[in-house]
């Protein structure tokens, strides 16, 4: 009998601080699996965000840097320019990438930086206690939209992947989800493509992953996956965007 599924080398053998059913654990593992399969662990320099994944470097087993909130792509730009022989990626949430860091995101993409971005969209701020994110759905209840997100005061869910797809510097954008094992495997393929693009020198590649936050959605882990499938993916359609 062969061991067909085990912890990837790029993922440290430690427990995470994430809540039960949180998508970060799955996404961390997928990134680690892809890096192992591509044989690039010793070349990787990762940039962790500010948000729930702020200590991702305690879980991954390769070189990592923190970045100030929203500035991951500025830090990544410099590391990749200074050391083009390394493989550099950022791992960022919706608040980090699409609110406080929108400027860095747009300009790194527009410069066509040869970087890989793993973008976790869970439609809420997790680390700070479940406040509205730029990607919060209309009507979604959060700590700062207790009656649900109202477009009159908070505007609409920000579709940053579609916005970025307009930019000439962007090579590849795909939106995937973690709502089932099948979708998780599609997500892994997309992450692999985004890293392969960097290895090939193709340019800016981003995978947006719809990811469950059972704690701040007020749902069970299983209900959270159903909510991604039935509700969230209607607002944020899955598939290749560019």
């Amino acid at each position: 009998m062969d061991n067909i599924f085990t912890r990837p080398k790029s993922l440290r053998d430690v427990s995470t601080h994430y809540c039960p059913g949180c998508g970060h654990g799955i996404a961390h593992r997928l990134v680690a699996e892809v890096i192992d399969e591509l044989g690039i662990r010793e070349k990787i320099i990762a940039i962790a965000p500010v948000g729930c994944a702020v200590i991702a470097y305690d879980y991954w087993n390769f070189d990592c840097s923190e970045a100030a909130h929203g500035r991951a792509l500025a830090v990544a730009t410099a590391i990749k320019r200074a050391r083009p022989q390394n493989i550099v990626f950022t791992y960022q949430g919706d608040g980090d990438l699409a609110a406080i860091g929108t400027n860095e995101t747009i300009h790194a993409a527009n410069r066509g930086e040869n970087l890989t971005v793993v973008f976790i969209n869970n439609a809420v701020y997790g680390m700070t206690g479940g406040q509205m994110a730029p990607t919060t759905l209309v009507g979604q209840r959060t700590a700062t939209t207790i009656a649900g997100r109202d477009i009159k005061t908070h505007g609409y869910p920000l579709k940053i992947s579609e916005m970025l797809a307009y930019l000439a510097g962007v090579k590849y954008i795909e939106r995937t989800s973690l709502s089932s094992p099948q979708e998780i495997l599609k997500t892994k393929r997309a992450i692999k493509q985004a890293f392969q693009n960097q290895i090939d020198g193709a340019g800016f590649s981003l995978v947006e992953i719809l990811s469950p936050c059972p704690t701040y959605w007020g749902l069970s882990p299983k209900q959270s996956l159903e909510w991604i499938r039935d509700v969230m993916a209607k607002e944020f359609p899955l598939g290749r965007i560019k």
Partner: protein
Amino acid sequence: MKRLMSGNEAMAEGAIQAGCSFYAGYPITPQNEIPAYMSWRMPEAGGVFIQAESELAAINMVFGASAAGVRAMTSSSSPGMSLKQEGISYIAGSRLPAVIVNVMRGGPGLGNIAPSQSDYFQATKGGGHGDYHPIVLAPATVQEAYDMMFKAFDLADIYRTPVIILVDGMLGQVMEPVQISTVSRKASIKKPWALTGCAGREPNIIRSLLLKEGALEEVNNILQSNYAAIQKKEQRYEDSNLNDAKIILVAYGTMARIAKVAMNKLCKEGLKVGLIRPMILWPFPEQAFIKATKKKVKFLVVEMSYGQMLEDVRLAVNGKAVVEFFGRAGGGIPSEDEIVGKIRKMLRG
């Protein structure tokens, strides 16, 4: 070889000669000659130039480049420096070297583009959040601005700390002959902590977030002992006529040049006037004042601000002598005549 250069160009060229291979910046007057010079000179020297989308992006690019182990710098002017403070705090907290040039202009707010020294507090006291100090160098001539770039990158690497070159807009703009170094002085300090990929070693992590009980206090203690070592070893100042001075002028940067002219004028009349010029503002050269206050003297601090370095002079003098002040800000520059007038008044009183 001597070249006629502006202070801004001299600092850019000095950085290149000192082995800086990464520059990111955002335009703001009166420091625009630095990014303009770097935009062609850095690629020529084999380095990276990026015109960033903002000062925030620029300082965080410097964070990244420094984390990757290369000598990195940015430059800005007062309002832009305010934007960079968060990044400088992260650089200090992550124990990364970095060089940041601030060509000061008038404030507060958008202020104006006239020379000023109003960012002294921001530079020397930390500027951003948390218990940290950048090392702050204060050249007074274009030649010194060039020479100090070597010192700045070495100090940054040795102590793993941000270093600020604090000049006013006049020094940034003025053109003077500069003796260009003919000996290439490249970085020789090893950086085993840098992010280079974990081939053949355990992964490196660059972080300032430390949540485990006691861990952040431990890093703060390392920073503090680092600062104590810097205070002990790195005080620098120039002094003139201290032997028999009754009044000692204290000024830095361009202001010190004007103060020197005033001093020379009064000395020619036989009046006993000296000068202390801090060349490094943090650590503040307390030693100069401990020495000077052994005699009966009075101090006159002159600044292009309303009295910021004045506070450090008072702390250093520690009540042992009278400390008076003359300053102007918002584009006003204390003139030689105003300083002379103030000293005459002090001598009468």
